[in-house]
């Protein structure tokens, strides 16, 4: 027999919802909340989601399980009074410089202050005097805007197991802090930006480098080229009225040209290059008895994580540079113009900002812009994005394959590598190029393939807690994989910290990651070339420039090495 409860007079069938908040959402009632996120543990701190039962008792909807026969109301005089008081108290401790805040228009506190008609705050406020931490290349922390909902802490610890930040001190002195309240740059932070992706206010935001790029664009003596990562094209559309996951690459290229970029390239060709080198490296390691399992190296937050926490496994990581760095190195090396050349990369990622600044990459990428920044720049430039014509990227870095485009989803690098590695090993054309076992938004995926006389066991992992678990297994000698793909952000780059902000309601109501990934897989399915080694531009580059795959020149430009993080 079905179980029901009554929420605001609506009969709601209980189907294993973990709390009343989720059940209410299903029947179309939005209970306000700051500290609740479906992917994180329940914290119950903000008290905004309180409901009232028949006897006038209050409880929090996020931490209360639905029970058969329960009758509750979510909007009563008592609750409105409490919610307004909570908001007033939060606002009293909040730096309210909304007009100059990056989260303006997307801030939950701002939204609720408006919705609940907060007209004045009776308490003195000095939150704006609390200084911000801009030490990181990836994120900016503004503790004066923190409402202590703890989402960042839970994300950093539970999902990412990085542990850069935590709650410190107590009572009115409580705050979110690194160890010894030091700069975030000196903490174990890997720059994944997932904290910013869940922060309901502007207390953690992605660093903005748009002004530096505008400056280069406005300088007639500078040639500005740009590359666009796969996940960006399926993440940006919603900001301009497109459906989640719709591929808007063509319009984005036009927009960038209008903004003054001289050359627009596609990171996908960098991804194809990565596959050529990486699959070659994998085959080499398997056949010559090199270090296995081999980990992918595309994700800079994962690299930081490994350098800090798994220095003993660094030799297991592919020496391939990430697609961004590979393409940038190639673009810079092939540039023959007279003008100063600035290369920009548009990434779904905040950790890429840090990667670009690594010394060994010689500043090949001058600036990294997140998807968020590009959205803002398009608006700033006054472009009607939806009405734009579509255009193609510039030669010689425009041709790509379906293998390159799926890099943006968890499992994409693995699938792309398998397409090339299997054909290389067997010397035969694949019947189907789709390796569906490694697709999907699950945090851990495994598969085993028989390739000629070789057994290839692979794992695909997203989210650094899952990465930690698999690294522990590898360290203990309990893992018999040959190849492991690791992406720091759950679901891969489509869910990168630099993608447009997705509010907590949407996060629980819609599979936005899956839709973005689907956008990439659809693009792949519609392409005639779906394997990196079929990319003519890539063959051209090897024939005329790099020489053979894995050769000397390729190594010089396309490979790197890793160093354990120095501990102070």
């Amino acid at each position, binding site marked *: 027999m079905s179980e029901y409860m009554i929420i605001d007079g609506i009969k709601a069938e209980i189907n294993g919802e973990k709390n009343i908040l989720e059940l209410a959402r299903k029947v179309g009632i939005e209970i306000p909340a700051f500290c609740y996120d479906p992917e994180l543990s329940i914290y119950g701190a903000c008290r905004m989601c309180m409901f009232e039962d028949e006897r006038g008792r209050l409880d929090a909807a996020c931490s209360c399980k639905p029970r058969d026969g329960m009758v509750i109301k979510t909007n009563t005089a008592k609750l409105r009074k409490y919610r307004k008081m909570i908001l007033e108290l939060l606002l009293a401790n909040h730096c309210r410089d909304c007009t100059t805040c990056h989260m303006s228009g997307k801030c939950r506190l701002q939204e609720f202050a408006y919705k609940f008609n907060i007209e004045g705050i009776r308490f003195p406020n000095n939150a704006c005097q609390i200084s911000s931490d801009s030490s990181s290349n990836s994120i900016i922390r503004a503790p004066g805007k923190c409402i202590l909902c703890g989402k960042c802490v839970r994300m950093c*610890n539970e999902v990412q197991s*990085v*542990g*850069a*930040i*935590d*709650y*410190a*001190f*107590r009572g009115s002195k409580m705050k979110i*802090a*690194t*160890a*010894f*309240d030091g700069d975030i740059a000196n*903490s*174990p932070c890997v720059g994944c930006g997932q904290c910013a992706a869940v922060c309901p206010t502007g207390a953690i935001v992605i660093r903005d480098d748009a002004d530096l790029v505008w400056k280069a664009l406005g300088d007639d003596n500078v040639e500005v080229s740009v590359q666009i990562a796969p996940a960006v094209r399926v993440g940006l559309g919603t900001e301009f009225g497109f459906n989640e996951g719709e591929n808007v690459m063509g319009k984005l290229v036009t927009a960038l040209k209008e903004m003054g970029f001289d050359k627009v390239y596609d990171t996908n060709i960098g991804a194809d290059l990565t596959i050529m080198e990486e699959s070659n490296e994998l085959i080499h390691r398997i056949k010559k008895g090199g270090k296995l399992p081999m980990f992918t190296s595309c994700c800079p937050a994962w690299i930081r994580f490994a350098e800090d926490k798994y220095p003993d496994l660094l030799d297991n990581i592919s020496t391939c540079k990430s697609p961004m760095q590979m393409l940038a190195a190639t673009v810079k090396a092939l540039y023959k113009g007279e003008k100063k050349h600035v290369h920009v990369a548009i990434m779904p990622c905040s950790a890429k900002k840090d990667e670009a600044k690594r010394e060994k990459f010689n500043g090949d990428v001058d600036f990294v812009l997140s998807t968020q920044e590009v959205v803002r720049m398009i608006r700033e430039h006054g472009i009607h994005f939806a009405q734009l014509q579509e255009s193609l990227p510039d030669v010689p870095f425009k041709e790509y394959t379906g293998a390159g485009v799926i890099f943006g989803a968890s499992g994409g690098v693995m699938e792309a590598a398998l397409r090339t590695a299997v054909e290389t090993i067997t010397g035969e054309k694949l019947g189907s190029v789709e390796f569906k076992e490694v697709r999907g938004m699950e945090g851990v995926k495994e598969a085993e393939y028989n390739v000629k006389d070789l057994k290839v066991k692979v794992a695909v992992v997203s989210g650094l807690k899952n990465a930690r678990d698999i690294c522990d297994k590898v360290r203990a000698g309990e893992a018999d994989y040959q190849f492991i793909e690791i992406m720091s952000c759950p679901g891969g780059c489509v869910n990168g910290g630099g993608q447009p902000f997705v509010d907590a309601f949407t996060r629980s109501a819609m599979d936005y990651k899956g839709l973005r990934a689907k956008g990439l897989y659809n693009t792949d399915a519609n392409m005639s070339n779906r394997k990196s080694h079929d990319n003519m531009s890539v063959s051209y580059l090897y024939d005329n420039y790099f020489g053979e795959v894995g050769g000397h020149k390729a190594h010089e430009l396309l490979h790197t090495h890793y160093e354990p993080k120095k*501990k102070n």
Partner: protein
Amino acid sequence: MSTFDYTVLDNAIEQFGNKESSLISILQSAQEHYRYLPKEVFPYLAEKLGISEAKIYGVATFYENFSLEQKGKYVIKVCDGTACHVRHSVPILEALRKELGLSEEKKTTDDLMFTVETVACLGACSSAPAITLNNEIYPTMTPESAVALIKSLKENA
């Protein structure tokens, strides 16, 4: 850092177990030995117990009992619970601070001899106003007897 002796921590880990839930007990042992929590404790325990440094910092700053600042050889706690307060504990505190050049913010003398702090209740209300010197109770104090105690400690030092 290389000269730091981790024996105290190793012993505590041995005694209480190499697990997250032992953290507070281990920190207490460290605090008891050093009279505060030296910075070296944090990365070491983080590594050993598999807890982030930020979390250990959070625990250490949550509880009033843990101190991140070095304390004096003599730690004096002036009780300011209700019973002591009404029997004039505040003048005792003020006299001690004046004698040692300390304040609410500056709790420890520069020569690391004395630390003066307040405590909510020592549970020695019958001896109010009371203070403790390195956990030993001194009953029915006056500002004068407190200053005399400091002077005798200084002379014997």
